[in-house]
């Protein structure tokens, strides 16, 4: 269980309060207006921002003071998820060994992960020789080989077309969430949440609200969320 124990995050004048728990192995959507603090919350889980108050715990253990690399957290950013000068296999290998000193066994695991995301045989391609969708798959393969319990997605698929984005979301659900990882993904699109997230965490007015079931929430959004969603609140179910 990922627990926020009376956490307060501060960045300049901005304040965000979080007091909630997220069940281990769940897949949650993080939704809220721009500037509400979704990325700030992820940065705090990953260890890029230290809370001004409170503690963040994983499986009952305080991880507030740990460096980002020491946490059992993998994160996909909006962009720059791959090193452009390294091959697909090297990029995936970094999830296994951050110094890239891979054994034969490691290399096999890397190839296996690339195969699982549908990129078998593309080990030596550099990102520039891969399509946008394939690049996202490499990043997902890197999360696959890492032992991280928590996976944070900060809109890594935002630049992809709708069909490709749905493919990636399904890949996340099948390969990461179904294998017991705890996934939290930021999204602007309620359809994304409906597609794969059983529960949704709303961030608004400086408060991170505890997770609630996605379907009922989007069918009957509270006022603040309704204003943000606008026309989109009526859209039930995925587009395709």
């Amino acid at each position, binding site marked *: 269980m990922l627990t926020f124990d009376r956490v307060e995050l501060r960045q300049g004048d901005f304040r965000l309060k979080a007091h909630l728990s997220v069940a281990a192995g769940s897949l949650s959507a993080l939704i809220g207006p721009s500037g509400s603090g979704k990325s700030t919350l992820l940065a705090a889980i990953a260890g890029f921002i230290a809370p001004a108050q409170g503690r963040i715990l994983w499986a009952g253990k305080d991880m507030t003071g740990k*460096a*980002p690399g020491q946490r059992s*957290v993998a994160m996909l950013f909006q962009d*720059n998820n791959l090193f452009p*000068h390294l091959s697909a296999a090297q990029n995936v290998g970094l999830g296994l060994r951050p110094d890239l000193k891979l054994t034969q066994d490691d290399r096999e695991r890397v190839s296996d992960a690339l195969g699982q995301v549908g990129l078998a045989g593309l080990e030596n391609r550099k990102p*520039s020789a891969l399509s946008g969708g394939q690049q996202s798959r490499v990043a997902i393969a890197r999360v696959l080989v890492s032992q991280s319990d928590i996976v944070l997605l900060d809109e890594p698929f935002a630049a992809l077309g709708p069909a490709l984005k749905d493919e990636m979301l399904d890949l996340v659900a099948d390969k990461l969430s179904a294998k017991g990882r705890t996934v939290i993904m930021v999204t602007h699109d309620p359809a994304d949440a409906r597609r794969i997230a059983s529960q949704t965490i709303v961030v608004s007015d400086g408060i991170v609200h505890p997770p609630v079931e996605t379907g009922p929430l989007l069918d009957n959004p509270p006022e603040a969320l309704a204003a943000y969603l606008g026309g989109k609140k009526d859209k039930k179910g995925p587009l395709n």
Partner: protein
Amino acid sequence: MAQRAVPITSRVPAIAAAGLVLLLTLGTLGAVLWRAEWQGGLSPADWAAIRFTVWQALLSAAISVVLAIPIARALARRQFRGRQFLITLLGAPFLLPVIVAVLGLLAVFGRGGILNSGLEAIGLPTVSIFGLQGVVLAHVFFNLPLAIRFILQGWLAIPSERFRLAATLNAPIGRLLEWPMLRTVVPSTFLVIFLICLTSFAVALTMGGGPRATTVELAIYQALRFDFDLGRAALLAVIQFGLCVGAALLAWRLTGENLSGAGLDRVVQRWDTPKPWIDFLWIAAAALFLLIPLAMIILRGLPGMFDMPESILAAAMRSVLVAVGSSLLCTAMAFALALKGGIAVSVVGVLPLAASGLVVGTGAFLIVFPFARPSDVALLVTMLVNATLALPFALRAIAPAIAAIQQDFGRLGTSLGMGGWSWVRLVVFPRARRPLGFAAGLAAALSMGDLGVITLFAGQSEETLPLAMYRLMGAYRMEAAASAALLLLVLSFALFWLCDKWGRSDADI
């Protein structure tokens, strides 16, 4: 408190680099201040040196800028074959060893040069290049290209929409668009060139001399080398440092200059085209002024190129070794400092601009002298000083690239748990390869052509190629000097090209 979103690397290399820079800049200054003999005050000769230093710099800057304006305007509004080549050529003097250019200028303007032969043939009196006119000529040769590039940038920075608007209004472009641009660009260009000319020892050494054409740096050299008057040399070094402090505050702008010539390949479309031949006359004159001296070096140097005395080849070998060492050290220091980042690093990076090579050399001489024979450490000191003096340029090339890498990939590296060494080895070094190669090439070429500190330290058996060449010129062995010049020219550009090429290879980033 936000944590640093970049893998943490060791700070030891940056501290070591900063230490060396501080020792060579502030440390040598301290030595100079400590040993300076104040009680005698300044002699009339010292005052003359100060006056000459300032006067020749003012004159050089003024002539460079005045000539640069019509040439830059011509380049800004005319499209012709070879335009890009000419603009690339304008970047070359930065890498060109001073002594090589001086020899080329002598072949054109010197005794027995093209100009005087022509004057003699038509029965006119010949002119002497040595003294003020020679110093100014060499300075204009070096800085006219720089001035043209600065002012050309100003011209091309005027949005083309404004020219279109002015054309539809039939408004006077000169008063409306060009004059305001020149008013902002020309003063800063003038200042930068003025400050460069304050500290160009090699030009004064070769073209100046005598009571009427001695700069402060040349006086330092003479006090140290001929009179062995350490106190007076130190006092003069303090004066030179005073002159250079202004340089430090303003000349750093120079290092931001775009040396590749990228972005200058555009031509402003104009609807007022009065007398195109005047523009082409200016361009041709500038091209000839820059190209003929270089061509003369090749012409005169080529015959003896493959019949070089052993001593020249040995000097060339020493120069290459010093240049490679200086380049590696300079690039490593710049890399370490850029990785660390921060205000302190920027200050350390700018400090060497305030240092004149001769002041640093004098200070180093004073520090070394009690413990060792200066000639024993000549090459080592030259290498260290060259690396330090090239540091601001290297840092300007490397620091923005490394900052961008940290910005783009720092969080990814941190979240993957990369250690400092993995981060540098796997990410920063391969991704910064291109600016690293460029900086290494720049440092190598600058060191290769340097004729500064080495003149204070070297005996016969430690001479570098520029020094050997200078001594050949002093002995009027002009053919041999021309061959050495060609060798030096080839080696300087080859070193730059090799390093730059290394940076560009495998650059599928």
